[in-house]
């Protein structure tokens, strides 16, 4: 499946696996895909956000969720110790994003999947998708980013 991915897109997926493990999650979610993409300078610039800002926002969303059920964990920031080495599977949302990425690439008649195709697929996600929630919290103007990417 990843043979059609250009180097940048493949690196984004590898980085997303690292982001998932870094947070202590057992599957690569669409939010991890977004964080992985932010390692790519062109994608970070298109979105207008840094990977650090996105990670911080993700931790803030966790704190808000815990507060919503009555648990106050001020200063909470995930920093787990997860054993590396086992291949991390994708969530079903992430699989949908990858399928959509392939379709977008084909529609554009591009030979290889680039980070921007992955990013366009992620921008389509809707609440309650984790990437969608993160993009909203980060104040990303989806339409504007998509427009910039399509130029």
């Amino acid at each position: 499946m990843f043979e059609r991915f250009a180097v940048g897109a493949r690196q984004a997926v590898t980085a997303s696996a690292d982001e998932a493990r870094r947070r202590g999650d057992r599957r690569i979610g669409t939010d991890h895909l977004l964080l992985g993409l932010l390692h790519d300078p062109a994608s970070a610039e298109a979105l207008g956000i840094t990977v650090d800002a996105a990670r911080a926002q993700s931790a803030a969303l966790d704190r808000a969720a815990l507060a919503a059920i009555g648990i106050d964990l001020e200063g909470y920031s995930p920093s787990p110790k997860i054993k590396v080495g086992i291949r991390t599977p994708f969530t079903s949302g992430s699989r949908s994003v990858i399928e959509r990425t392939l379709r977008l690439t084909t529609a554009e008649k591009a030979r290889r999947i680039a980070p921007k195709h992955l990013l366009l697929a992620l921008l389509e996600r809707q609440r309650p998708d984790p990437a969608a929630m993160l993009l909203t919290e980060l104040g990303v103007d989806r339409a504007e980013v998509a427009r910039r990417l399509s130029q």
Partner: protein
Amino acid sequence: MANDGILAQIRSTDPVSGLRAVGALHRLADLVEATHVQLAREQGWSWEQIGDALGVSRQSVHAKYGK
């Protein structure tokens, strides 16, 4: 009663928040477990004692944390 208050709070929350909180609690539990399994071993606890404290088998703790 205090319990009614907590339950009402959990029920009144949007599942987007509630389910995300569950994920965060799992990650927090993993962190606390890893930290305190290490501390327990440093203080001389056996894998069996650690397993008993966690309510799991000695084998599963050792498989997860043993070298």
